């Protein structure tokens, strides 16, 4: 006798369904059921649109703390934090000159938890800039940009640019003195190709500088048009671009067969810990897919696979990094408030007028030539970074820290060269000045071409060419150059941040700044 024909009270079935509803809602949300077995853990990943950006299984090499230091995830985490707090700030922020300043003041002093949200937003943005730079350095030093990951490195450069763009556009929004003058300088850096076109006297016909500035400001002055443009970029355009690029970035990691690891990763790993069953035999699979999937599929023809399910191993680790990042941002927000200076005053510059800290290295260079420091050298550096994976076609050392010819000893020497050259050049300039002070009548083009920035670039470039010859390896040259630029960035940023005072003069400490 089947149950349906059984005589039951009229509402029994309805009652049963009602009671079962919560469990069924959960069951249908996680299509594969609860992730408790190997198979359901896989379905858990690829049944979920967000998690499916990950692969269902992950190599044990990747899960080691030293493989990535969790920096990419920390960057993602910082971005998520800015996203949430940023949306909350939008409830009160009003993008109109002067009103904007008042609304930030309201957020800071009147809105409950407003100051806390603002602090977290500001700190998470700073943390994101730090982690994205460290993450790039990690990818570089482990030679993770090599085939087939070249293009993901290029996507990464896009992410770096958008991250800096987000910070820069956000800097204007409070409409205080700090913001106003940083943006004035920024917009004029956009206009600085005029330094060259003016010197060649062709600005009348060809004026990319003027065009860029007009595009950014929408007016001749930093005013309401500029603020609404920066606001739109900050809350809409750049975040969308960032999310788009991030999706591609993650998706490609998966399609590239997970993170880079050495060919002999399996031998290098200690025996598996036994917390959870690991694939140790080449699995029984049909390889029809191999005809469709390009590249070296990691499983084909190789022995121990050494992978574990992403759920829970990878996801819990990611959650851990997310929580750690949150903790750091919250702690920083408790001890230190986001700055807010006086209301913007277009006729009296903040003195010294400093950009956000990660641009102070560039500001140091800009103090010699606006075009070279603000556009020329950044372009050279970005182009050089982007080319790395296409010039270094070697395979030695992929997936290993400081992998490749030369290795850590080379990086150590490059650190000495990098710090030495930048400190010497800075010390010379601070002590003796530069061309304009010796020959006031010299043409602008001379200074544009010959300034401390180009000098440093030249020294670093020559050193790395020498390394390429000495080790007969492009990777060796790249190791040297990347390390040198990192050192230069650090030295210039520290000088710009701590040793420059009013009128951009050198001071050993802010306590010596003249009072005015």
């Amino acid at each position: 006798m089947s149950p349906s024909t059984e005589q039951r009270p009229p509402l029994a079935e309805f009652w049963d369904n009602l009671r079962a509803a919560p469990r069924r809602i959960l069951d249908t949300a996680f299509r594969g059921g609860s992730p408790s077995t190997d198979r359901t853990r896989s379905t858990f990943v690829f049944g979920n649109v967000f998690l499916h950006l990950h692969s269902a299984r992950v190599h044990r090499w990747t899960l080691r703390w030293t493989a990535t230091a969790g920096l990419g995830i920390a960057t993602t985490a910082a971005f998520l934090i800015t996203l949430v707090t940023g949306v909350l700030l939008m409830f009160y922020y009003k993008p109109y000159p002067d009103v904007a300043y008042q609304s930030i003041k309201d957020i800071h002093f009147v809105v409950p938890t407003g100051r806390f949200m603002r602090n977290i937003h500001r700190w998470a943005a700073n943390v994101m800039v730090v982690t994205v730079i460290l993450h790039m350095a990690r990818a570089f030093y482990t030679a993770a940009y090599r085939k087939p990951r070249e293009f993901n490195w290029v996507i990464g450069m896009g992410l770096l640019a958008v991250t800096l763009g987000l910070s820069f556009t956000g800097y204007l929004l409070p409409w205080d003195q700090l913001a106003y003058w940083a943006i004035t300088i920024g917009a004029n850096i956009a206009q600085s190709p005029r330094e060259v076109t003016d010197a060649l006297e062709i600005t009348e016909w060809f004026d990319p500088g003027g065009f860029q500035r007009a595009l950014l400001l929408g007016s001749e002055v930093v005013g309401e048009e500029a603020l609404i443009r920066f606001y739109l970029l900050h809350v809409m355009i750049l975040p969308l671009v960032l999310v788009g690029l991030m999706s591609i970035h993650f998706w490609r990691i998966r399609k590239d067969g997970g993170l880079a690891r050495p060919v002999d990763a399996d031998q290098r790993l200690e025996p598996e810990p036994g917390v959870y069953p690991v694939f140790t035999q080449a699995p029984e699979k049909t390889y029809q897919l191999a005809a469709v999937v390009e590249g070296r599929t990691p499983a084909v023809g190789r022995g121990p696979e050494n992978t574990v399910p992403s759920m829970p191993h990878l996801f819990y680790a990611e959650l851990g990094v997310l929580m750690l990042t949150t903790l750091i941002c919250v702690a920083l927000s408790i001890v230190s408030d986001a700055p807010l200076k006086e209301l913007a005053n277009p006729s009296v510059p903040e003195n010294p007028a400093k950009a956000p800290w990660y641009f102070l290295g560039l500001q140091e260079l800009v103090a010699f030539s606006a075009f070279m420091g603000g556009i020329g050298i950044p372009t050279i550096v970005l182009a050089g970074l982007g080319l790395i994976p296409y010039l270094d076609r070697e395979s030695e050392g992929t997936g290993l820290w400081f992998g490749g010819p030369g290795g850590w000893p080379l990086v150590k020497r490059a650190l000495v060269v990098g710090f030495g050259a930048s400190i010497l050049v800075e010390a010379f300039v601070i002590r003796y000045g530069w061309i304009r002070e010796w020959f006031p009548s010299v043409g602008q083009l001379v200074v544009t071409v010959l300034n401390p920035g180009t000098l440093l670039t030249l020294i670093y470039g020559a050193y790395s060419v020498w390394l390429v010859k000495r080790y007969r390896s492009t990777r060796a040259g790249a190791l040297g150059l990347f390390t040198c630029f990192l050192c230069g960035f650090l030295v210039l940023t520290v000088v710009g941040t701590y040793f420059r005072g009013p009128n951009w003069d050198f001071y050993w400490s802010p306590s010596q700044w003249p009072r005015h």
Partner: protein
Amino acid sequence: MRLDPEPLPRRDWLGLASLWSAASALAFGFIGAMRLPKAAVVAAPSKALKLTLPESLPAGEAFVPPGRAMAVFRDGEGVYAISTICTHLGCVVKPNAEGFECPCHGSRFDHAGGVVKGPAPRALPWLQVRLANGEVHIDEGKTVPSGTKAKQA
């Protein structure tokens, strides 16, 4: 198997038409969008300015009209105005005993606005000045060669 070329099937024609219409719509849309960010009339504060110099202003001493980025001078040869927008990156320079100094990256200028030190690529521009009924009319939008001083008619 047919060897003679098939006539273009209806469906392909539709496909091509949609492809090209989409491509040209995108192209035109892009051109339009590129025109949008630059308004035909750009909102900017007025550049013309009328003022009277204080009687007591010493020769060669700067008078800075409130809220304006310029310094106005009077000496034996006439009245003249120098823009105080730094030619480097647009900070507002301050008149001092030697000429002008810029707070942002340390450019220094002499009394006539010529570059003495620092990153500024050009001299500070002189602005057009006209005198009428004891008033000074200055147009920030118009520059004149350095050394042009307006004399009382």
